[in-house]
Every structure is written in structure tokens, then in C-alpha cells.
């Protein structure tokens, strides 16, 4: 690009375009080119990954079931003040909507939704649908009361009214062991139904425990790998990388083989007389099994960042510290360890993020006591079919992970991540 000056102080290219403009255009073209290269993957990830997850998250707040099934009843209930019983018009609308054959599918969904709120609704709906059909004329208030006395209680109607919004916070409330009482106030669940907060706490404790165990085990060997001559350390590195490359299920199977009651370790213990044959140690299908297997599986994620940080620390610092009179311990703690903090941070956050969403290992070797939040999400997805609650639990987990991810990005930079 030949540049000429037009005398008025403005730089122009040979064909007379102002230089500033020409450069801006060139940058813009480059920007578009760069973006076009990224676009296919970006679109692909958005469609096949981001949108589905956002879509699931909307399930955690949406509750169209009740208003879809009982629009007219809800319209009447909204006018009602919530005390005593709803007006006869609400009962009549309910009777009409329950008798409508075309409405059966939606009524089933509404009943299921209300059942998560208070058990018994499903059977109440089934029974009432069957019986109200035969009632040809009012007053429907008495007819409903005759079918089931719950219809004569304002609490029942309040639950329906509270569940009538298209959007709800009830799944999130359930996910933190809260609920709305019939008056619509937020209250803690009865003690026997409080499980999720405990489970979140357990998941955090386990992830924290696994992170600490990984750090304790990974630190010494990373240091060894970083200080040995390359030839030896490359060989030893294989011992870290092979588990890293081995299938998760294979490693989980391996731990079942080692740890089960008739497994290799217990046999060894019996052989050496540490325990007798009747009292074999239970090391698997409980929390211990989960902890051991998860630590083993996630350890390479701690070793690799630690190693790459330690590799860059020059040994001269340690020598300088020693020559200035520090004993080996002081030199290590005061001079070496502070320099490894970025590696410790990177490895710990990575292991913690991976551990907190772990599903496979706890499901296979965790038994009852080793189940984590992921396993409960699966349970609500596949067994209890309470998808709203599953989405809410997933949403809370996701928020926690995104915060950690953001932290990791701030501290380490996501593009600094390395494998192998």
C-alpha cells in the first residue's frame, strides 16, 4: 500500500482513499475472516449444546401443567380471597373441565405436578374425574365434598391456586428443602423430607476431600517428576498418563476388583493376618469406595498442572536459599512452595469442578452413602420423573460450577489448559 500525503496533512493510499479508512477496512475484513473460521463451531455448539441446556433450565421455572388443564377453574380461583371455600363457579368449572374427555392427558400432567407439591393429589384427581362425570347438575360444591372431603378444605384449593402460575419458584424452593405452605408463604420442608441441602453439603465435602487427597498425593510426585532428569521423568510420567488415558469404567472396574469383600486387597489383608476372614473390611459400595476411586481418577488432573508449573521453577532459587543458611525444610517451604501456588490453584479448581459434577463413579461404587447430587438428578430424570426438580437441582449445580469456571479463567486462563 503506497502512502501519499495530499498536503492538507491527511495521509492517503495511492488510490486516494484516506489511510485511516483503508486500515479500518482491512482490520474489519480480517475480523470477519477470523470470525467466519470460528462461526461453524460456534453455531454448532450453540445449537447442539447451549440451547438444549438453557431449554432444560427453563423447565426449572416453568409450570404450565395446572393452568393448561384447568384454565377456567383457575380464572375463578384467582378471584377468590383464599379463605373459606372458593365460589360455586369454581367448583362448576372444575366439574366441567374434569369431565372433558379431551382434557384427560393434561389433567394427568396437572395431577402429577400437584402430587410433587403434596402427595395424594394424583389419586384425588383420578377418583374425582371418574365420579364427577356422573354428576349432571349442581350444586357442585356438595358433589365434590361427597367425592372426597379434601375438596371441602380451603388448603386443597389453595395448593391448586398457588400452582396455577405459568412460572414458579417451587422447584428451586424444593431443591433447597423449602416449600410453600397453603397460604403461599415460604417455609422449610418437614424434617423427613429435607434431603437436598444435606446432599449438596455432602457433594461439596466429598469434592473438597477428593481435591485435598489429590493435592497431597500429587504434590510429591509432581516435584519428583519436575526435578528428575528428563529421561527418567518421561518414563515415570507414563505412570501418570496411562491412568489418564484409560477408560473411566475400566478404572472403576479395577477398583471394584481390588476393594470388594472377596477382592484382592481384602485377600491380602487376610493373608497377612491384618483382619480375619469373617471381618473383611467394607471398602466399596460406600463413601470410602467413592473417595478412593474418585481420587485415583482425578489425580492426573492435579499432577499435570502442578508439574508444568514446577518445571518452570529454576533450581537455583533453592540453592541460593540453602547457601544463605536455610535448612532444606525452610528453603522448600519458604522459597519453593510459594512459587507453586499457581499450579496448586489451577489443579485444585480443576479437580473440584470435575468432582462436584461426578456421576459415574458414585453411581457404580458409592452404594447408598456415597451418592452425590448428580445421582439424584439422574433419579429425578429417570425414576421419579420430577423433571422440574431435576432441572432446578441441575441449575444450582451449574451456577456453582460456572462461578468456579470463571474463577479458573481469571486465575489460570482457560486457553492455558493443557493435556498430556
Amino acid at each position, binding site marked *: 500500500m503506497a502512502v501519499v500525503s495530499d498536503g492538507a496533512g491527511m495521509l492517503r493510499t495511492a488510490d486516494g482513499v484516506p489511510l485511516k479508512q483503508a486500515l479500518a477496512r482491512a482490520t474489519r475484513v480480517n475480523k470477519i475472516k477470523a*470470525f467466519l473460521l470460528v462461526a461453524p463451531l460456534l453455531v*454448532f455448539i450453540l445449537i447442539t449444546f447451549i440451547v438444549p441446556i438453557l431449554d432444560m433450565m427453563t423447565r426449572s421455572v416453568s409450570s404450565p401443567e395446572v393452568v393448561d388443564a384447568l384454565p377456567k377453574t383457575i380464572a375463578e380461583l384467582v378471584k377468590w380471597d383464599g379463605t373459606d371455600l372458593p365460589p360455586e363457579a369454581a367448583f362448576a368449572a372444575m366439574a366441567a373441565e374434569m369431565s372433558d374427555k379431551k382434557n384427560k392427558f393434561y389433567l394427568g400432567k396437572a395431577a402429577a405436578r400437584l402430587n410433587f407439591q403434596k402427595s395424594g393429589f394424583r389419586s384425588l384427581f383420578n377418583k374425582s374425574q371418574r365420579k364427577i362425570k356422573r354428576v349432571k347438575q349442581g350444586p357442585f360444591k356438595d358433589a365434590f365434598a361427597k367425592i372426597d372431603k379434601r375438596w371441602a378444605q380451603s388448603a386443597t384449593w389453595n395448593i391448586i391456586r398457588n400452582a396455577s402460575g405459568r412460572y414458579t419458584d417451587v422447584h428451586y424452593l424444593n431443591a433447597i428443602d423449602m416449600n410453600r405452605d397453603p397460604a403461599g408463604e415460604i417455609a422449610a420442608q418437614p424434617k423427613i423430607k429435607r434431603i437436598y441441602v444435606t446432599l449438596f453439603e455432602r457433594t461439596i465435602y466429598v469434592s473438597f476431600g477428593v481435591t485435598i487427597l489429590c493435592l497431597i498425593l500429587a504434590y510429591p510426585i509432581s516435584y519428583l517428576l519436575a526435578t528428575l532428569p528428563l529421561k527418567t521423568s518421561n518414563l515415570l510420567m507414563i505412570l501418570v498418563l496411562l491412568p489418564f488415558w484409560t477408560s473411566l469404567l475400566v478404572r472403576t472396574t479395577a477398583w471394584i476388583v481390588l476393594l470388594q469383600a472377596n477382592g484382592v486387597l481384602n485377600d491380602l489383608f487376610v493373608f497377612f493376618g491384618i483382619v480375619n476372614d469373617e471381618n473383611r473390611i467394607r471398602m466399596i459400595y460406600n463413601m470410602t469406595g467413592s473417595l478412593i476411586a474418585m481420587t485415583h481418577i482425578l489425580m492426573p488432573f492435579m499432577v499435570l498442572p502442578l508439574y508444568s508449573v514446577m518445571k518452570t521453577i529454576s533450581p537455583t532459587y533453592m540453592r541460593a536459599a540453602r547457601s544463605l543458611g536455610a535448612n532444606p525444610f525452610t528453603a522448600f517451604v519458604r522459597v519453593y512452595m510459594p512459587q507453586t501456588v499457581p499450579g496448586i490453584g489451577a489443579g485444585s479448581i480443576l479437580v473440584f469442578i470435575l468432582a462436584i*459434577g461426578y456421576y459415574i463413579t458414585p453411581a457404580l461404587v458409592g452404594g447408598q452413602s456415597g451418592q452425590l447430587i448428580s445421582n439424584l438428578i439422574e433419579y429425578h430424570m429417570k425414576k421419579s420423573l420430577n423433571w422440574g426438580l431435576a432441572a432446578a437441582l441441575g441449575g444450582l449445580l451449574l451456577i456453582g460450577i460456572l462461578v468456579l*469456571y470463571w474463577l479458573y479463567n481469571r486465575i489460570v486462563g*482457560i486457553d492455558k489448559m*493443557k493435556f498430556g
Partner: protein
Amino acid sequence: MSNLPPYAGPAERTWYYTYRLICAAIFVFLIAPIIVMVPLSFNAEPYFTFRPEMLALNPDAFSMRWYQDIIDNRQWLFSMKNSFIIGIAATLLATTLGTLAALGLSRPDMPYKGVIMGILISPMIVPLIITAAGLFFFYSRFGLSQTFVGIIMAHTALGTPFVVITVTATLSGFDTSLIRASAGLGASQTRTFFKVIMPLISPGVISGGLFAFVTSFDEVVVVLFLSGFEQRTIPRQMWAGIREQISPTILAVATILVCISIALLTVVELLRRRSERLRGISPG
């Protein structure tokens, strides 16, 4: 720590050997579980432990019956075929899309780099159970659940972060003046890409692709939610085996998978050294 200095006192000497012993124990912890399975997969009896005959190396205690079992059982061969179909398709897609994106991300003019990188890496960060649940709802709506297409799409998404990260890392050491040199010598952009850029970044592309393959080959949670009987993969089959009735056939399959991992690890390691050599870093 590599060598004990000559002036080391007895305390330091003791610590030196204790430390090495600790490290040895940790390495045993890492590798022993994988090693232990291998001889057990040749067990003649359906046990998961070493019997006295095996320890005495009695040839009658060993057999290939569990390997024979894999071949006789059509279910295992079938799932192996599925695993390879899904793995290879997902790898090709992920490698192509991921490499293109990495090329774009490495350009100095790339706008919104941080945000886009964050989105592209997210499949690696989001817990698999959330991914699986989300995809299950969304793909079902479009009739993509219980199809190969659905699983391949999901596995492609899960594999791309690895490709993006490894290729971006390779490109960070890439000398961009080579592109200008190539253009200056009259090569078209396509020619420059295939003759100059590709050979230099290929180690990164291949190891990224291998990571994507392993991710798909090893993935079970999404498959649990999305696959029907027709799409059963090896991990899905192993999952069923471990959950229902764990038989030594699983150990035989596991041993085969370990061999595959060793092969992949070797390839990646060789590529890493080649890449370092190309970039002028001595592998030592």
C-alpha cells in the same frame, strides 16, 4: 532433589530415601489397579481374585475363556462396532470444526475472543449429567434421541473443546511470517494452508482428534440418556455389566481397552515430541 548433595547430613539422607519411598507408593496407587486386572482376565475360574494355583503359575489356572466369551457374545462385538462408528464420526466432525475455530481464535483480529472461547470450552466444564439431561429433552423433541445422529452430535460437542485447546496451543508457537513468506512466493491461500500451516500444526490436530476420540469412546452418561438398544456402545455395555452381574468378561474387555489406551498414549507422546522438535524445543 534429583541428586543428594555430598554435604547432606544423615537426617537429609533419611528423608531423601523416605521421600522416594513415598513417591513409589503413590505411583503404585496410580498404576496398580490397572495392572492387577490384566492377569485376572486370564483367570480360568469366574473369580475376581488370585487363587493359589495362579500364584504358583500353574498353566491350568489360566485360560482365554473370557476373551472367547467376548467373541461368542454378539452383544460385545455389536457394541464395539457402534463405539467405533460413533467415535470416528464424532472425531472427524470435532477435528474439522475445532481446527477451523482454533485457526480463527489464534488470529490477532479475532473479536470477543474471551467470550467465544468460554462458550466453545463449556461442553468440557458442564457436568455430564446436566448435559445429558438437557440433550435428552431437546433431542427428543426433534426425534434425535435413540439415533446415531443424535449421539454423534452430542459426542462431537463434547470432543471439540479438546481439539480447540490443543490446536490453539500448537498455534501459539506458530511463526506467522511463514504464511507471508508462502504468499510472497506466490502460493494461494489454500495451497499455503495445506502445504505450510497443516504440516506444522498436524501434531496438535492429531492429538486433539485423539482426545476427542477417547472422549467419545469412553463416554457413558450421555449414551445412557440418548441411546436405545441399537446404539449400545462398549462403555454402555460395561455399565450394564458392572451394574447387573459383574463377570470376568468385563475384565477381558477392560484389558483390551487398556491396550488401546497404551497405543493411543504412545501415538500422542510421539506426536508431542515431534511437535517440540519442529518448534525447536529439544525433547531431551
